[in-house]
Every structure is written in structure tokens, then in C-alpha cells.
């Protein structure tokens, strides 16, 4: 989705030439504050990418999900930072053994931000709209839903065939519950059931959320949250040092020392589902040869990439650690320039030239490493840095590219490898069959098992290279508690955030 794939760009945009710093890995918790939380506080959070509009129904992009989901809009179910599915507007839910019936108990006493009551009819209407409106985001993810009905507070979803991803999809856009026939102008306003309400949006500057004092659950711990959109990391660092923001998301781990120097911030690295994906167009004369694709993968020093970025971890297959179906595939195509040269020789690929099409917002660190690594094995790489709309048109729509680098941030997006029409140009019936089996599975472990098998095949086919698995890089003020640190480029649930005085 627009920029869903891009939002973590800031992690790369930076100056990798700066001294490398040893950062705490894994999903560290947020720093603890010694002060007393101030319920009247205003917390300022730096974000990188501003939504182009606020229409959660239609406009793609992690920039919308990141702030609006959980905070303003909710579904029957939601997801925790470690990707577990939990009740939200439903107090409980069950799934039948055959995977064909889902039953949700809708909470009572829930109101929308404008005071209207949430009714079972709203839920039925919302889910039906998500399924039937062609222009809405993720409409196709509900394609296996046969009907949605309500009886009292009980909502029943009946499936035509089982779909192991249904609950997960309901935690996202396809599950957002809106007021039936609401008159709100979704592009510039919002009317949800979450712990925050939209205060104001100053386009090109900031978005302010205010605490929803009529919220059905535990009330937010700050009076307001201000999202300041500062694309440049250096400007963001300056804002932090000048005391203008409390949290920096999408930050650069190489600036750890600078941001921590005054003692007011601590850098936290969390896991993420950001996948630095080097797509290889299988229609290209050279790239249709698996040996050439393998040579490219073995020529890339993944550890060096992670070092240059100062965060993240190497990645060797399409599924990141946070998602079901993950497996360590580092043995499939380990870094080995000599082997890469041999493969190219076997393939008869002497002095070949390829073009890398990359969104210009990603900066130069990754292209530089790729140019130098590929050059070392005899591949000349030309870099074509383009605007995002150009990338969408040339690469995504027309598949007119050799190599393309994109940071895909979506969680659980394996389906793109099972879609031969996707810009990856990867078409393997066996993978498509395994993906269908995973969808059809009624048991989560079984579904993950099929994905795991499919992911191994994708990696062994050398369908692409996964240059790195990014980290969520967040600098948190020492007066802030409850700031999430995992996958914050995708979702930023602020129900727990608190700010102490002083």
C-alpha cells in the first residue's frame, strides 16, 4: 500500500557513514520513568510520513493505519504488538471447528466519537461494505465471507470456505467498524470508537488526537497526542534536542549517541515486519536464469547492510520472524562472492548490466552497497532513483524493471508470492497451492506449516533477495512510559502512553 511500504524509509534515508553504535537488540521495552504520569499532558510524537488524507475506508498506506487504527478506529478484534489477536469491540469470539462460523459478542455501551451509539446493525453494515465496495482497501480479503448477521449482541460471520487469515484481516482495514450511513467527511475527519478522537489536522505539519472521555474501555493516560510530521532525521534530532518532541519514530540507529547525549532520550530497537525486498524481474533475459538470481543473492553481504543501517537483522526468505511460517533460511544462499562468480560463469553471464529502480526517498545507503557488492562479482548495476508515483507506474503496474528495492512493511503479506500477477513476477503453482492450503486450514499451526513450506520454496527458487529485516527504531523521552516499540511503522497503539511532569 502507498507508503505502507515506505514509512520506514527514514531508517535508511540516513547517514550510514556515522560511527556504528552497539544498540540493544530485540523487542526491548520502553524506558521507565520515575515521575508521576500527568493526565493533562500533551505528548508529541515525531512521525515520518503524513497521510495524504484520512479516509480509512479507501486510502492505502501505513501512514493511516499507523495512527488511526486502535487509537481512533476499532474492529471486533485487534492485534497486540507481538501480533496476537485479541478482543476489541467484541468482548469475546469463537470459531467453529470446521472454520465456517465465527461468533462475536458485541460490547454494550460503546459510542462513536460524535456520541452515536454502536449497534449490531452498524457492525453488519460495515463488514458488508468492506466486502462489497470495490474501491475500498483490502476488499478482497473478505472474499470468502458468505454472510454477516446479527441477533441481539451476537454477530455471526458465515464463510463459504474456511479462511485461516480471516481474524487477522478483521484486525486491519477490512474489519474497521463505522457508523452505518455516517455523514462524516472521512477524508478530513474521523468518527470511530477508539480511546482517542481526532482533534485537528494541520496538513503538512501535524495531527492532534484528544482523549475520548466517553471511551468504553480504560481511558487514555494523556490529554492529547500530537503527531509531528518531520521527514528528515536530522531535523527530527534537532527537534528532540530542542525539547520540541517527546518521541521519535522511524529514527536512525546511527544517531543513537547524538540523541542520547543529553540524557533525555533512550534509543529503543523493536522487531518489525519491514522486509527490504530486492525484487528480480523474471522476464529479464538474465534474471530468468535461476543461477543469475542466486549469484546476486550470494554477492550481497547482508551482515554489512545491517551494520551500515545500525539496526535490523539479515533476512533470507519472504517471511519475517514476527509472522507465522518463519524459518531461518540463512543456509539457502549464504554470502559467497566466489560462488556467485562461478554461478555467473556457468550461466554465461559475462559483464552484464542491470538497472535497479528504487524510490528516491530511500536514500543512498542500500543502492551504494548493492552497486559495490554486485560490481565485485562482475555485474554492473545502474541505479534509477525515481519518485514513488513513477515507481508505482513503472514497476508495480507495468512490471517494467530489472531489479527493484522496496521496504515492504506489511505484516503477513506472503500472499504476494502466491500471486503471479504481482510485480514480483513470481509464478510457482506449488507455492500457490501451498498458500491456498494454508488459507483453507482450520488450525493455525497447520496454516503456519504450509506457509513455512511455501516460503522455503520461494527462497530456494531465488525469487528475490531479502536484503534485511528492518527494526522499529524509536527514541523515547525519559519522561514517557507505555510507548510501543514493536512494528510501530505499521501500527502505533497509544492506549498506554503516559507522560510525567518535568
Amino acid at each position, binding site marked *: 500500500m502507498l507508503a505502507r511500504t515506505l514509512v520506514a524509509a527514514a531508517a535508511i534515508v540516513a547517514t550510514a557513514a556515522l560511527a556504528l553504535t552497539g544498540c540493544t537488540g530485540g523487542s526491548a521495552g520502553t524506558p521507565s520513568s520515575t515521575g508521576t504520569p500527568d493526565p493533562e499532558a500533551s505528548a508529541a510524537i515525531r512521525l515520518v510520513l503524513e497521510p495524504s488524507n484520512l479516509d480509512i475506508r479507501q486510502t492505502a498506506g501505513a501512514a493511516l493505519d499507523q495512527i488511526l487504527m486502535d487509537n481512533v478506529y476499532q474492529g471486533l478484534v485487534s492485534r497486540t504488538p507481538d501480533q496476537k489477536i485479541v478482543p476489541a469491540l467484541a468482548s469475546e469470539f469463537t470459531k467453529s471447528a470446521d472454520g465456517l462460523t465465527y461468533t462475536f459478542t458485541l460490547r454494550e455501551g460503546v459510542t462513536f466519537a460524535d456520541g452515536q451509539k454502536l449497534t449490531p446493525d452498524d457492525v453488519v453494515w460495515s463488514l458488508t461494505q468492506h466486502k462489497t465496495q470495490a474501491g475500498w482497501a483490502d476488499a478482497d480479503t473478505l472474499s470468502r465471507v458468505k454472510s454477516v448477521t446479527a441477533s441481539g449482541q451476537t454477530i455471526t460471520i458465515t464463510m463459504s470456505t474456511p479462511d485461516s487469515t480471516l481474524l487477522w484481516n478483521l484486525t486491519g482495514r477490512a474489519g474497521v467498524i463505522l457508523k452505518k450511513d455516517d455523514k462524516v467527511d472521512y477524508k478530513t475527519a474521523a468518527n470511530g470508537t477508539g480511546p482517542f478522537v481526532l482533534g485537528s489536522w494541520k496538513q503538512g505539519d501535524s495531527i492532534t488526537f484528544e482523549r475520548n472521555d466517553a471511551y468504553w474501555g480504560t481511558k487514555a493516560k494523556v490529554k492529547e497526542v500530537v503527531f509531528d510530521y518531520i521527514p528528515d532525521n536530522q531535523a527530527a534530532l534537532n527537534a528532540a534536542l530542542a525539547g520540541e518532541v517527546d518521541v521519535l519514530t522511524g529514527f536512525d540507529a546511527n544517531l543513537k549517541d547524538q540523541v542520547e547525549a543529553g540524557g533525555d532520550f533512550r534509543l529503543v530497537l523493536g522487531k518489525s515486519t519491514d522486509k527490504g525486498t530486492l525484487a528480480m524481474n523474471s522476464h529479464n533475459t538474465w534474471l530468468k536464469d535461476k543461477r543469475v538470481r542466486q549469484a546476486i543473492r550470494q554477492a550481497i553481504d547482508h551482515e554489512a547492510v545491517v551494520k551500515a543501517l545500525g539496526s535490523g537483522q539479515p533476512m533470507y526468505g519472504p517471511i519475517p520472524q514476527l509472522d507465522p511460517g518463519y524459518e531461518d533460511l540463512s543456509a539457502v544462499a549464504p554470502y559467497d562472492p566466489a560462488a556467485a562468480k562461478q554461478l555467473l560463469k556457468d550461466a554465461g553471464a559475462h559483464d552484464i548490466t542491470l538497472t535497479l529502480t528504487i524510490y528516491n526517498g530511500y536514500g543512498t545507503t542500500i543502492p551504494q552497497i548493492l552497486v559495490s557488492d554486485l560490481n565485485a562479482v562482475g555485474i554492473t548495476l545502474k541505479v534509477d532513483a525515481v519518485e514513488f508515483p513513477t515507481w508505482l507506474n513503472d514497476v508495480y503496474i507495468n512490471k517494467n524493471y530489472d531489479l527493484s528495492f522496496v521496504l*515492504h512493511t506489511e505484516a503477513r503479506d506472503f500472499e504476494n508470492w502466491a500471486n503471479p500477477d504481482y510485480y514480483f513476477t513470481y509464478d510457482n503453482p506449488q507455492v500457490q497451492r501451498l498458500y491456498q492450503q494454508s488459507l483453507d486450514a482450520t488450525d493455525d499451526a497447520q496454516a503456519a506449516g504450509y506457509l513455512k513450506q511455501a516460503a522455503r520454496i520461494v527462497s530456494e527458487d531465488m525469487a528475490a533477495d531479502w536484503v534485511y529485516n528492518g527494526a522499529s527504531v524509536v527514541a523515547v523521552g525519559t519522561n514517557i512510559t507505555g510507548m510501543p516499540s514493536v512494528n510501530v511503522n505499521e501500527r502505533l497503539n497509544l492506549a498506554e502512553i503516559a507522560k510525567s511532569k518535568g
Partner: protein
Amino acid sequence: MIRYTLTRLALLVVGLAVASVLIFLTLRVLPGDVAQLIAGTNSTPAQIAAVRDQLNLDAPLPVQYGAWIGGILHGDFGVSLITGTPVLAELAQKAQVTVPLGLFAMTIALVLAVPLGVLSAILRGRPGGTALNVGSQAVAAVPVVWAGMMLVVVFAVWLGWLPAQGFPRAGWQQPGPALRALLLPALTIGVVEGAMLLRFVRSATLQAIGQDFVRTAAAKGLTRTQALIRHGLPTMALSVITVLGLQVAGIIVGAVVIEQLFSLPGIGRMLVADVGNRDLVKVQGELLVLTGFVLLVGFAVDLFHRAIDPRQREAA
């Protein structure tokens, strides 16, 4: 004078008409469209088609151009394809940052350039004059971005006197913080543009010093400086205003860069974002207004020249 004004006005209208066609066509050459951006990288062709249909993007170009110009003739610049808000309202809102920023920058440029330029001319050949001359050359060569970064490091990060970025959410309802927010950005543009202007003031002053009437005034008992201020300044004003008129375009370009650097919600930052979003209706409206503004300034400078300079009137 009336005939002259009417001729210039006609040229202005023709200029705008040509600009509107160029702007419209150039934007249509850009790859990618707003429907693809709205639908994103998980979209199906059906979803993109649905959005295109909703936004009416498939109409033939002449029809789209006609609708745009027809609207403008009625004072309607259209609505954003993405947010649905009227383009003029958005421009008016962002102008609250960019116009004061430009005026502020221009004031700083003038305050620096005029006295220092005159001084540098008077002191020509002496150490002070040489220092000013070399200094202004150096500053004029500095990229605006670098100047901005340096000012931020000194005044915002080290000294903590001024904000590093952003604009108060309450806008001009908080005049103090708003002015403080614009000070560093205006200084950045003002110093660089001022250094360029200084060079023009200097050469205009040198030219004036050599003029017969200044020498005559000096011969009649005025000091050289007095003669220069009383008789030389009016002729200098002409060339300074011409250059200032040209610098308006430079200040607009500077604002585009500086608003990015300081995260200021002005016209420049909006323009960059709108191009990135392929919100073409909005971009073409913004560009036409900016072009109109620059042409209007040129028009005003011409009229001013005509009014103030007797030689031009006689020549006509």
C-alpha cells in the same frame, strides 16, 4: 501611461494563458496517477479502476483543461483530488506561513544589503570595503540548505533560543511563537538573497558615484556621502527594485527548500507533497497562482519604473 499599462496588462494575461497550458501539459507527462497512489501496493486492478472512475480521471485532456480554465474564470480553482478541500482555501491557509516568511526574508535582505552595499562601495579599495565585498561573495555562494542547517545548529541546538522546526499549531493567534518560528527560516533565505542583492547595491552605488550630477553636487559643496544619498540614491533605487522584483522568484524557490528543512506548513511544502501525491488539480492551481504572482510583481516593477523614470516616458 494608460496605454502602456493596458499593453502590459494584456501581456500579463497572455503570459498567464500560455503558462496555464504549459503547466497543465507538463503535469500530464508525469508517470503514475493519484488513483494508483490512493489504492496502493496491495491493490487489484479493479480497485484502481474504481478509484479512477470516482475521481473522473479518464476524461479527455482538452475536456479536463476546459473544465479547469472554465472554473478559474468563475473564481473556482477546483478541489483537491485527495482531500476534497477547495484549492484556493488550501492556498490561503498555507499563505499565512509563506507570505510572512517571504516578506520577512525580503526585509532582512534589504536591511542587510542596502546599507552594507553602499558602505562597501564607499569603502572601495580600503580593507573594510574589500572584506564586505569578499564576504558577500562568499555568502551569496552558500546553498540555502547549508545556511539553514548551520543556523539551526547554532541558534536552536546550541543556544536554544529559537525553535529548530515547525510552526505553532495556533498559528498567528500566537504572534510571538509564530514570529520566532519564522525567524531562522527567514534569516536563512534573507541572508543568502541579501548577499546577492548587496552586490547589486554596491555596483549601483559605484555607478552613481561616477555620475556627473553626483560629482557636480559634490563640487557645489556637499560631501561625497551627502551627494550620494541626496542625488545618487533615487537612481540606485530603480535598479535595486528591479533586482528585488527578480528575487521574488528566488524567494519562492527558497521557501520551497526552507519549508522542507524547517517543517513549515507553507505553500512550498504543500506543493512538494502534492506533486508526490499526483494531486494534479491542486498542483496546477498552486503553480498558476505562483506564476501569476511572479508575473504580477514584474508588471508592478515595470509600472513603477515607468512612473519614476522620466527617461522611459520621453522615450515612448
